[in-house]
């Protein structure tokens, strides 16, 4: 498995992967920077109205919708880039006629997808801490909320990642999988708005913030742990089905 991982890692060299990994965190962070400086007055008023315990909490709440929309898109694009390297190289027939199990190739590419997005949320985490320090947010840094918000998002998109990855791997035309991913990300926002449909996995990313607006104001997300457990089970199931289907496919 290790040799496959290192072979796959080499294939990602000089690809556009890094741009996509950086794109979403940097876009959201620059939006928040503008928001907290040019609209500082409004932001402070609203934070007070929502009863935010600190500006950190308000930041986490404020970016949850953008992050919840943007990160599934990042996952879609990253999955597409990783799968497309092989499509573009005409590589399937070579890679899959090596003495290596197809399931392992499928899983190792998915692992690089996960690592890439792990990097993306880590950059976001560092960026948020940096932003808070630069803007002089009061109080101690709420590490658990920040870390939970970032890595929780990664777990929240896992099922969608697995699905998008399968689409990108099995269908050569990447426009198709990207379209599906974009629709899913937007659907997630709508699904999250209603009481019953918000339990649909597509709706998790936009609800995966550790800080949510409740009846009494900003508070901790009570459903967070349920989302995580459901998602971990779902991703295992989806990867299992996906890799079996992939291994049985005819390679053209």
């Amino acid at each position, binding site marked *: 498995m290790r*040799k*496959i991982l*290192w*072979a796959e890692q*080499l*294939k990602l*060299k*000089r*690809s556009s992967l890094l741009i996509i990994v950086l794109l979403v965190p940097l876009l959201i962070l620059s939006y928040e920077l503008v928001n907290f400086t040019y609209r500082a007055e409004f932001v402070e008023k609203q934070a007070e109205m929502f009863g935010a315990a600190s500006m950190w909490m308000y930041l986490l709440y404020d970016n949850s919708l953008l992050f919840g929309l943007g990160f599934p898109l990042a996952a879609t694009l990253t999955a597409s880039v990783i799968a497309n*390297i092989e499509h*573009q*190289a*005409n*590589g399937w*027939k*070579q*890679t*899959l*006629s*090596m*003495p*290596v*199990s197809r399931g392992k190739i499928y899983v190792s590419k998915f692992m690089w997808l996960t690592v890439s997005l792990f990097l993306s949320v880590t950059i976001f985490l560092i960026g948020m801490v940096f932003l808070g320090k630069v803007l002089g947010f009061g109080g101690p840094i709420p590490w658990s909320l920040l870390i939970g918000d970032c890595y929780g998002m990664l777990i929240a998109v896992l099922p969608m990642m697995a699905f998008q990855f399968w689409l990108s791997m099995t269908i050569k035309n990447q426009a198709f999988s990207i379209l599906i991913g974009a629709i899913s990300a937007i659907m997630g926002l709508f699904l999250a708005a209603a009481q019953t449909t918000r339990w649909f996995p597509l709706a998790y990313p936009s609800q995966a913030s550790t800080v949510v607006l409740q009846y009494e104001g900003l508070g901790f997300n009570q459903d967070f742990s349920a989302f995580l457990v459901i998602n971990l089970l779902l991703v295992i199931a989806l990867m299992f089905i996906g890799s079996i289907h992939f291994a049985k496919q*005819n*390679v*053209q």
Partner: protein
Amino acid sequence: MNDQILMTNDLTKKYKKHTSVDGLNLRIERGQIYGFLGPNGAGKTTTIRMLLGLIKPTKGNIEIFGQSLKKNRLQILQQIGSLVESPTYYGNLTGRENLEAVRRLRDLPEKRVNEVLEMVRLSKVANRLTKEYSLGMKQRLGIAAAMLSNPDLLILDEPTNGLDPSGIQEIRELIKELPEAGMSVLVSSHLLSEIDQMATQVGIINNGKMIFQDSIERLRQKQKPLLKEQGIKADLQNDFLWLSQTEPAFVSDMNASLVHSGVSVYRLEEVKRTLEDIFLELTGTEGSL
């Protein structure tokens, strides 16, 4: 002597109603260069994809190195190197990195990369991105990747596609040397002249069916002089007298008797049927474009 390394029985692939490969019985022995010949669309590539386990046959079975491909695919692939149709290249990587990716996947010694680069004469451009490579260079890279693992059986599908004449010559020489190192080669082509110059064994496929499979010598034996079956009897066509025998004694006797009987002979020429003619006759004309 009869050391078969590849054997297919009744290998068939159907796509809906269209039968792409029909009851193929391939036989390849160790140390052979097996020329797999057929017009475009005859089923060569489909057959090769089945041999590599990339697509599943509709019917029939494949045995390589005495093992069933269905059951021991990974062990068999360990000893096979392959190039299927258009070559694989990761454009974002250099030639060397492309081979390095294969090397890592197959867990081979690092020095092999330089060895195969040397073999296909890509050492000079090894550090350039492969998206800048010419078609011929990409093709060589594909051949290099196939040979990287020093396989027992090398499967090359149209390896000389896109190469210039000197490149074709080089690759041909390279392939011809491989059996000395104990390698067996299956090389497909739609060009008979190509196969004629390197293969020891020939299989001709047309419309998915094997129509000839034997040594290249047996194929050449079909190259007998025209109208031999008519013996001394000659055939007059468009002012040419066709004879079936070319032995010097026979020809001079014939010439003498012709001249003696008052027929003026201005030219004696031996006309052989070309291998192309035999090929076209075997495949029919429908397949040729």
